[in-house]
């Protein structure tokens, strides 16, 4: 019994660290590649890694939605626009101004050290986690029952937001101005 528990623990941490390394690597490639198409493909890889991480957190519904909405719908939109504009390489964008990049690196490194320091120093106040309860937390049933009772009004407002986005996108992309 104890041995089996240990095995699941190591499997879970292997999954987490593997997915985390791939997610960080693909995110770095997204922001450093010159061609937008290659960036988009690495972003899809990053979304799949995040879906896997949601599964390690027992959030099945969110993981499926992540693949359907992000890797499916939003990335198809991105790839469509990239191919529509036919941008090709970014070389002609003359990304000079290395001092700007140096400032960006410095600011990012500073912010990252701050965040990691805060998270590490808050170690004892973190909730320990009880995954016995969390397993049936991310099901469609538990999310749906909350969404259509407690969060019904925000849910309806969301539909108006999507309508506004559809009309706005059509108006912006159609008119010549």
């Amino acid at each position: 019994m104890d041995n089996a528990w240990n095995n699941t623990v190591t499997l879970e941490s292997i999954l987490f660290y593997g997915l985390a390394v791939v997610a960080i690597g693909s995110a770095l490639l997204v922001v450093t590649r010159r061609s937008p198409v290659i960036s988009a493909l690495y972003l899809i890889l990053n979304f799949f890694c995040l879906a896997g991480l949601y599964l390690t957190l027992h959030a099945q519904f969110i993981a499926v939605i992540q693949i359907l909405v992000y890797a499916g719908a939003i990335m198809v939109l991105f790839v469509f626009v990239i191919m529509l504009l036919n941008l090709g390489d970014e070389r002609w964008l003359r990304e000079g101004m290395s001092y700007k990049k140096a400032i960006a690196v410095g600011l990012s490194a500073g912010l990252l050290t701050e965040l990691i320091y805060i998270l590490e120093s808050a170690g004892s106040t973190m909730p320990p986690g009880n995954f016995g309860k969390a397993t049936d937390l991310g099901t469609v049933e538990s999310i749906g029952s909350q969404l259509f009772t407690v969060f019904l009004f925000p849910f309806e407002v969301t539909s108006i937001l999507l309508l506004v986005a559809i009309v706005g996108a059509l108006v912006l992309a159609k008119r010549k101005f």
Partner: protein
Amino acid sequence: MVPLQSYLVLSAILFIIGAFGVVSRRNAIIVFMSIELMLNSVNLTLVAFSAYLGDVTGQILVFFVMTVAAAEAAVGLAIVIALFRRKRTVNLDEINILKW
């Protein structure tokens, strides 16, 4: 079990990478992708807290964040197309029609 801090540190790293992309890149479409990276890292934080606290509210908030991200991507890419029609470029340094 992986401790909660590991998820939060991973999410912080992904957020910083996204912020770095927004600040350093000049291609409007890649800036949009970096914003999606940042939104996703916040989603990871919300799902991690939701699982460790045993509260489903975080996952519902992720649902709403994804809706807003979809709307933002649609409108943002429409703006990029409109700008490209007018200026023939997606370089953010050359798009300065609100500046004089």
